[in-house]
């Protein structure tokens, strides 16, 4: 094979610490290399044209580009060599930027290392074979996991684009965190007035199938052809006939059930509909509190239900849905703030979370929109807001900024003044982060028009004093200690990855960061893609996000799905495992270790052999390291290719 080598300067990114001309000169001496040069920007149009011309002029059979990471430009250069008439797998990349120039300053050592990497790449390239992708048809349906605002947006956009959508929501209603909010910043418009119509659209859209109170049990398959097992959890109410009239909820004698929708400010009934605008508006029994399910006595709801849809015997149900793409919009959960002993660790009833306060402000909330202290129901006069509770705090393992707390705290301060004109709000903050459109104006308004007292500093202690709470903290701008007699303390609790995010990630085969937030394909250029083809992200599951950003991501994910489905067939990646049937002894060890179920046993003239299902194989290589006789090989990273790279590097 005649090989051409192109060593990229990447402006000064590489050239500053690597002598690229020397690398090209060294490469000319390698076996097989007939052409080598250094170029300013190999990925630019003139850079790519140079490759095409060299292939034609020197009749090259393969190309090595020494530049950045393959994650960045492997696809670019593969297209380049394809344009010149070569098979795109007759191309190798040596990463001399991330692996060399960016991590070391010694020009000589860097140059030597670059030469080694190029030698390895040429040795591997010499053993590359032309690979050809197979085509397969796709199922143009999409699964959206999570019915918060991001999931709703993604579902509606996909459905409007003509796709059939399956929306799976964990709780009994869609709406997510946004449905719990009273107002939204920076416009202070009513949250349920803007979200409600969208939720109704989901319910009425002919292309959307909604599974509320359901979870993803199993995901099999691959891009274009996923098979999803959905668990419809038992509601003990036949939703086909439930009209959402709410009589059961009125009459239910079990009044101490956990009210998760209202963030447990009060209690709800054992059979309940979380809020009036719920979609679907259907009742569900909480088995933990229903006396009929616990003790077999009661049955009031069954007696009063006008459509007779109470079914105490109901069991979880499983349905299988086939889809071609998945949008994950599983959102976030609130940080458990009770780890903070200085805020009372949960002992004081009048220290509440911002989301609890939000429910209190909401007209459909448990207090009917009146601000009342949980301890005695009195209206508070002094309200203290504490920011960064579980944000920007390494000591509790949450060094990141949640990003939207500054804004909702300003909003809550404004709403407090609206509800209680005689009240005074205090905000303890670290920095104000108000970087969105109209955001800074909004926080200024809270300070200037609504007379909120912003104190830059942390609170060191909260303790009860009579029926009030004494909040003691620092004012770092004044350099003094501050004490406030508070009637109510609201903690701006940060966001964390939702419970169960990691479990779902494993089912989806996507990766997540150390906090449990899902990893995007590229932090800048692929914000809604994942590294698993056909799986996309929307909203706060990828990192804390406010409503506008979540909606934008929902639409972005939908556009990616619509783009994917614009073709009728997809090409499978040919860089997969293949079995050499002569060497295979049919022991089945590869079948046992394959995490994707991509290998099956076949009968070949009476002998058991392994066979790879190309479209399912992800090319991870676990089978190749399991097979003792080397009978199964990755097509683009065979044992011999790896050995040749090792031999190129370790010449003893």
């Amino acid at each position, binding site marked *: 094979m005649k090989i051409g080598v192109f060593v990229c300067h990447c402006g000064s990114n590489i050239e500053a610490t690597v002598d690229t001309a020397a690398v090209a000169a060294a490469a000319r001496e390698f076996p097989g290399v007939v052409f080598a040069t250094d170029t300013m920007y190999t990925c630019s149009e003139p850079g790519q044209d140079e490759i095409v011309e060299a292939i034609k002029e020197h009749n090259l059979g393969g190309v090595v580009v020494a530049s950045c990471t393959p994650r960045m430009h492997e696809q670019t250069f593969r297209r380049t060599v394809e344009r010149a008439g070569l098979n795109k797998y007759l191309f190798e990349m040596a990463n001399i930027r991330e692996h060399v120039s960016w991590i070391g300053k010694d020009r000589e050592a860097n140059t030597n290392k670059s030469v080694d990497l190029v030698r390895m790449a040429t040795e591997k390239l010499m053993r590359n074979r032309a690979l050809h992708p197979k085509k397969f048809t796709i199922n143009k349906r999409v699964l959206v996991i999570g019915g918060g605002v991001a999931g709703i947006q993604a579902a509606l956009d996909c459905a409007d684009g003509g796709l059939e959508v399956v929306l799976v929501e964990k709780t009994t209603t869609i709406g997510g965190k946004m449905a719990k909010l009273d107002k939204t910043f920076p416009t202070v418009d009513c949250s349920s007035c803007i979200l409600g119509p969208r939720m109704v659209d989901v319910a009425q859209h002919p292309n959307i199938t909604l599974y509320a109170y359901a979870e993803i049990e199993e995901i099999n398959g691959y891009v274009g052809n996923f098979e999803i097992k959905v668990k419809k959890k038992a509601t003990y109410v036949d939703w086909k006939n439930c009209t959402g009239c709410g009589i059961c909820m009125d009459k239910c004698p079990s009044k101490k059930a956990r009210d998760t929708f209202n963030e447990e400010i009060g209690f709800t009934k054992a059979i309940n509909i979380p809020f009036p605008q719920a979609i679907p508006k259907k009742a569900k029994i909480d088995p933990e509190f229903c006396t009929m399910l616990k003790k077999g006595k009661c049955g009031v709801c069954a007696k009063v239900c006008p459509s007779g849809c109470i079914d105490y015997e109901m069991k979880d149900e499983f349905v299988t849905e086939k889809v071609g793409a998945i949008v994950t919009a599983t959102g976030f959960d609130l940080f458990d703030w009770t780890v903070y002993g200085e805020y009372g660790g949960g002992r004081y009833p009048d220290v509440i979370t911002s989301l609890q306060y939000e429910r209190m402000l909401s007209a459909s909330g448990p207090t009917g929109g009146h601000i009342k202290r949980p301890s005695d129901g009195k209206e508070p006069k002094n309200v203290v807001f504490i920011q960064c509770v579980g944000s920007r705090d390494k000591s509790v393992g949450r060094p990141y900024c949640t990003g939207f707390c500054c804004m909702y705290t300003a909003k809550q301060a404004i709403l407090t003044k609206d509800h209680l004109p005689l009240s005074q709000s205090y905000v303890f903050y670290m920095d104000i982060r108000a970087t969105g459109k109209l955001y800074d104006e909004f926080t200024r308004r809270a300070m200037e028009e609504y007379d909120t007292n912003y104190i830059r500093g942390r609170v060191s202690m909260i303790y009860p004093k009579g029926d009030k709470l004494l909040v003691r903290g620092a004012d770092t701008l004044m350099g003094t200690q501050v004490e406030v007699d508070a009637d109510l303390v609201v903690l701006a609790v940060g966001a964390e990855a939702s419970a169960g995010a990691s479990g779902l990630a*494993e089912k989806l085969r996507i990766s997540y960061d*150390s906090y449990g937030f899902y990893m995007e394909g590229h932090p800048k250029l692929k914000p809604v893609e994942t590294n698993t083809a056909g799986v996309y992200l929307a909203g706060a599951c990828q990192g804390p996000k406010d409503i506008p950003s979540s909606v934008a991501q929902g639409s972005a994910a939908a556009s990616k799905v619509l783009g994917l489905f614009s073709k009728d067939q997809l090409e499978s990646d040919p860089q997969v495992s293949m079995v*050499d049937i*002569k*060497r295979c*002894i049919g*022991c*089945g*060890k590869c079948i*046992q*270790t*394959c*995490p994707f179920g991509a290998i099956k046993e076949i009968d070949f003239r009476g002998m058991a052999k392994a066979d790879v299902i190309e479209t399912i194989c992800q090319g991870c290589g*676990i089978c190749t390291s*399991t097979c*003792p*006789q*080397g*009978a199964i*090989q990755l097509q683009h990273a*065979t*044992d*011999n290719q790896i*050995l040749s790279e090792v031999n190129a590097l370790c010449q003893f």
Partner: protein
Amino acid sequence: MKFQKELKDSIRKALPELDVVIGWCGSFDPLHATPHFIRREEDIEKLEIGPLSVHNLATYLPGLRGKKVGIVVKGCDSRSVIELLQEKLIARDDITIFGFPCTGVVDQAKIKKALGYVGNVESCDMSDKSVVIVAAGKAHSLELSDVLADKCHSCRYPDAIISDIFVGDKSGEAVPAPADYEALATFENLSLPDRFGFWLKELDRCIRCYACRSACPLCVCRDHCAAESREPHWLSQENNVRDKLMFQVIHAYHLAGRCTECGECQRACPVDIPVLMLKQKMNKEIRDIFKYEAGVDPEETPPLLSFKMEEENITEKDW
């Protein structure tokens, strides 16, 4: 042996249903035994079991796949059978296992070392305590415990763990103590250059006969061994110690979590290279990481032959 007659009777009873029963019989001299393939009634009388029954006959089973095979096993051999069953390399319905309580087998290398060359062996008399060898008209007496194989001194499974017919009295139901790998620990305390030097020295005399591979009951690649393949081309045929060491490392890796430490590799080695130690090292690691011992439960899956998203004792996230 007391139960030899009982064993022969049970083989006689089972033989009509079987293609072959594998045991041991006398060999070229009274000091050696050889594997014995019983196909006819008259073969049965030749069967002899005792301290000379060193061979792990399970090695033959994968090659006889599809036939009805009876096999006589010591405790250690039975673990190889279990491992082969686990890996579905043999079918349980096809094999009939004859177990007996083993009291240890000799290590021919130790006898050779103790006596040197003694000429033609005329007789060999084994009791519970001693071995008396008459060679060239001269009697040599050895303590049996001095010439027992190393593995027998620390044997934890003297009785066959799996058997269809068990003859003799079981030596005890005691739960075996975990393997201690004492000798290995001593070796591991040496410095890295010392250890590497040891292997370069030992393996320098390797003649690449691959007897270790042929004797191993779990080397099941048949004629597709990585040692002689060009696709993939893991080893060259050059005569250098690194390739020899590389082969032993590949062998040990292929056996990680599968090896039952029967010691056949080392026993078969014509130049007495202590290759078992490499496998013991792998097994020790497997035991520490996966809490697993190969060849004990036919229903288990060896840890390296399964895929888990999260391993209990490997926390990649902390790396």
